[in-house]
C-alpha cells in the first residue's frame, strides 16, 4: 500500500481488483479544502479510462511490475505481436487503449514492456524516437513565412506537422508522447 499522494505517472496500481496504469496525475486543493490528487487511469486490458480523485492521505494498492525487453513483430489489426528477447516466448498485447502504438512502433525494434504476473500492462516507448519521412510534398515556392508547416507521413504511418524544409527520405526526431516534431536529424 502507498499513499495516494505518492502516486506517479506511469505507475501501476490496483483499483477494484483490476490493474490500472496512471496516465496522468495532478494535485488539487479546492477552495481552502484538503489536499487531493486527481488521476486519470487506464486499464491495459480493456482500454477503459477511469477518473479518480482521492485525498493524498488515502491508501492505494500498488503492484510490483517487471520490465522485459521485447521485440515488436507485427500488428494483426487487433493485437500487437511481440517476442521476449530473453525467453523467446511470443505473446500479444490487445491494441485497445494502445491504438496509437501502431503508428509509433517499428517492426523488428525492441521495446520495454511492463509485466504484472505474466500480464503485459504497458508498452514503454523512448521519449524521443527518430523516424524516416516516407511521404512529403515539396514546399510550395514562395511559401517562406517563418514557422510555416506541412503534413508528412513517417515510415510507421504516423502523420504529423513538420517545418516546410523537411524532405522525403530525411529523418526527424519525434516526441512520442505528444506526437510532435522535435528536430531534423542529419545522417
Amino acid at each position, binding site marked *: 500500500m502507498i499513499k495516494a499522494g505518492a502516486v506517479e505517472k506511469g505507475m501501476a496500481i490496483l483499483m477494484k481488483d483490476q490493474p490500472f496504469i496512471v496516465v496522468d496525475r495532478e494535485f488539487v486543493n479546492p477552495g*481552502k479544502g*484538503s*489536499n487531493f490528487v486527481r488521476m486519470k487511469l487506464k486499464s491495459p486490458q480493456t482500454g477503459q479510462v477511469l477518473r*479518480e480523485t482521492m485525498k493524498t492521505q488515502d491508501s492505494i494498492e500498488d503492484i510490483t511490475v517487471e520490465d522485459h525487453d521485447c521485440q515488436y513483430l507485427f500488428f494483426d489489426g487487433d493485437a500487437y505481436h511481440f517476442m521476449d528477447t530473453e525467453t523467446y516466448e511470443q505473446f500479444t498485447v490487445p491494441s485497445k487503449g494502445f491504438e496509437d502504438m501502431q503508428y509509433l512502433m517499428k517492426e523488428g525494434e525492441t521495446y520495454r514492456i511492463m509485466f504484472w504476473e505474466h500480464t503485459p500492462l504497458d508498452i514503454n516507448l523512448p521519449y524521443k524516437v527518430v523516424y524516416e519521412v516516407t511521404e512529403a510534398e515539396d514546399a510550395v515556392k514562395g511559401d517562406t513565412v517563418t514557422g510555416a508547416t506541412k503534413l508528412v507521413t513517417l515510415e510507421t504511418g504516423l502523420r504529423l506537422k513538420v517545418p516546410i524544409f523537411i524532405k522525403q527520405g530525411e529523418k526527424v526526431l519525434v516526441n512520442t508522447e505528444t506526437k510532435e516534431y522535435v528536430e531534423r536529424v542529419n545522417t
Partner: protein
Amino acid sequence: MFRETQRALIKSRSALLKQLRSFFDARGYLEVDTPLLAPALLPEAHITPFSTQFLHPFAGNYPLYLIPSPEVYMKRLLSHGSGDIYQINRCFRNEEQVGREHNPEFTMLEWYTLDADYLDSLKTAQELLAYLAPLDTQGICSRPAEVMTVQEACMKHAGLDLEKAQSISEITEQAVLLGLTPPTSNDAVTWEEIFNRVFLSFVEPELPKDRPCFLKDYPSQIPCLAKEKPGTPWKERWELYLGGRELANCYSEETDPDAVYNFCSSSARAIAKKTQSQGTETPELDLQFPKLYESPHPPCSGTALGVDRLLMALTGTQDIGGVILFPLSDIL
C-alpha cells in the same frame, strides 16, 4: 546571464500589479498592507501554516506564523471602519504539494466591499477581467463569462443532483455509481470530501477553458465564512475559473456572531484532532476573531484572487513556476 524570459516575466508581473492597483484605486478602495507575521491564525481545518518564533531577549520565545491569507487583519480593519479596502500581498501555505498550480509562497489580491453581497462582487470581478484585457495575450478575459450554479454544473457534467444528495449516504451512493472507489482512509469521511472527489473528477475538468467561468451557490456542507442563502441548501459564495484553473473565491461575508463562533470552534476541533493524530503541534488559534462581530457589522463581501494564476491565464503559461520569480520548484 539574465534570460530574456525572465525580463519578460518581470515586465508582465509589474504591468499586472500596476493594472490591479489602478482598478481598485479608481473605484475608491484604499490599499492596505497588513502584517505577514501573525501571532495566531484563523482556525481553518485544512491549512497548515509555516511557523516561526520571535526570540525575545528577556521574556522567552514567542510563536509567529506566516499568514495563509490576509483575511483576519483586513476584517479587523473593516470592523474598525476602514471602508472599502484591497491588498496585494504574499500568502504562505505549508504542506500543499509543489506542482503546476501551487507554490507554497504566492501572491494574493484580496478586496472587501461594504454594503455589498457576493453578486455585487461578481460584477466587480467581471469589470476587473474586462479591465485586464490589454494584458490578455490569450483573449480569455475579454470573452463573456459563463455563470452557473454549482448545482447546474454538477447536473450537467456528472448527472449529480446535489439537491437530492444532501446526506452523506446519498452522495456516497452517487459517487460510487459514477465509478469512484469507496473511501479507504481511516478518518471519518465527510460530505465535503465525497463532494470534492466527484467535483474534481468529473466537473472541474469539464469547465470552459476559453472564457471566464463563475460557479456560484456552494453547498452549505462545506464549512466556510460565507452567509447561508436563505431558504436553500447553499451558501452565498462563488469561485472563478480562468483557463479551467481555480482563480478566485468570494463570499457574502458571514457577520452573525454565533455563526462565526460556530465556524471557529468546529474548525478548531478539527485542527486539534488532525494535529493529535499526526503528533504535530497545534498552532495558536485566534479565538478572539468572532468578537469582531459582536457589535453590529455592515453587510460586506470579500474576494480573494490568486495573482500568479491570473498571470498564468493572461500569458498562457501552464506552470506556476513560469510566472514567479525564483519559484520554490527550482530548488525542491
